[in-house]
């Protein structure tokens, strides 16, 4: 489904931001909010960097978290959910 050459971004229907009072990243949409756990917040933080491919995202995350042996499967599992929920946009 998700190809590592695809460009990835946060869907324009959502706003992604850090919430100081809640100490977590959130996704905001009309009249609603999704509070993100640590790993979801970290992955989406990298998705918010413009003009980024899934491959670059994986590299950046692996560098940021070298202690995680197989980060790829965890990230892909989250991206599948995020894509299904419309939080992220994938383009060729």
């Amino acid at each position, binding site marked *: 489904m998700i190809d590592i050459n695809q460009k990835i971004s946060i869907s324009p*229907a959502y706003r992604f931001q850090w*919430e100081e009072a809640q100490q977590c990243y959130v996704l905001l949409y009309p009249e609603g909010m999704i509070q993100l756990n640590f790993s979801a917040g970290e992955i989406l933080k990298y998705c918010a960097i413009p003009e980024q491919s899934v491959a670059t995202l994986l590299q950046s995350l692996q560098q940021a978290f070298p202690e995680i042996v197989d980060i790829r499967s965890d990230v892909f599992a989250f991206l599948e959910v995020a894509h299904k929920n419309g939080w992220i946009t994938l383009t060729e």
Partner: protein
Amino acid sequence: MAGLPSPNKPLWLLAELTYACPLQCPYCSNPLDFAQQKTELDTEAWLKVLREARALGATQLGFSGGEPTTRPDLEILIAEARKMGYYTNLITSGVGLKPERIAAFKAAGLDHIQVSFQASSAELNDYLAGTAAFEHKQAIAREVKKQGYPMVLCFVLHRQNTDNIAEILDLAEELGADYVELATTQYYGWALVNRDQLLPTREQLQRAEPIAHAYQEKFKGKMKIYYVVPDYYEGRPKACMNGWGNIFLTIAPDGTALPCHSARELPNLTFPNVQEHSLKWIWEESPAFQHFRGDEWMKEPCRTCPEKAKDFGGCRCQAYLLTGDATNADPVCSLSPHHETIVAAINQANPDLPSKALIFRNPKNSKQFSKI
């Protein structure tokens, strides 16, 4: 307040900027005596509210009313709120709104616009609104989408329009809504006065529910449809406001802070005003906001009910308005000893009985209520 756990954060701030409104919807959530309440916070006072609530953790901000676009300083409030990091929602009837102002809101940083409709036909819409608004509302909804906003369309459902649920959802799709809120009429204030004419029948709901679910499936991934069965027919109460003073904070036009927009109807509670107290004190320490937090206040059957953490005993305003005591279980609960009041209301709301005229929400009728 030793011993009390520190409250959650007021994630949702509803700023009721004004009670002025060109519409007269007979189910309006504004107080019956709104015409008596002419004081409105000025721009600076609102900015102080926004700053203080944001510091407490408020993230979603709704500009509401009345009709919030009657405030000439709305652009300023939007721009400042956006800078503070709020997700800004404008909740409007669209009446009186022009494309240039929608563009000005966009430039100020407005995130989303919710447009309310009364019905799917001009005839019923304009009858309920008390003014010819339907055509203009459609034009405004199209303009909102054209300018790139996400859009929620809100339809308040009751006996007069529940049978048109398919037409309503077709209209929403045609106008390009991203979300449709099929809001159940809440029977407080104006809607309670008009309940006999507004409460849908069980047969209507039995017809409407499968249609709503079929449309949810049909438009999945394209247009999200929110639909709930009215609490009068559910047998269990709604988790009103997600609990008293838990995540919702409403500020009325005059600066009164409320845990929900109906709470002013409750007796023996003094709600604090933002011009006299900090929001931090109001949220964390004021007696009114503490009053129904937790479950110490509960009576039976709520106190020992295994579902009390799920619905918090339902709605305090409904308990007071229908049983005379705000600490009673919400009578929509079938376990409530007062549940017969709901059964009676359902029987009374019979379309075969001679119908009274709707009482519209306007200053003239409001003044009548103030005299009582």
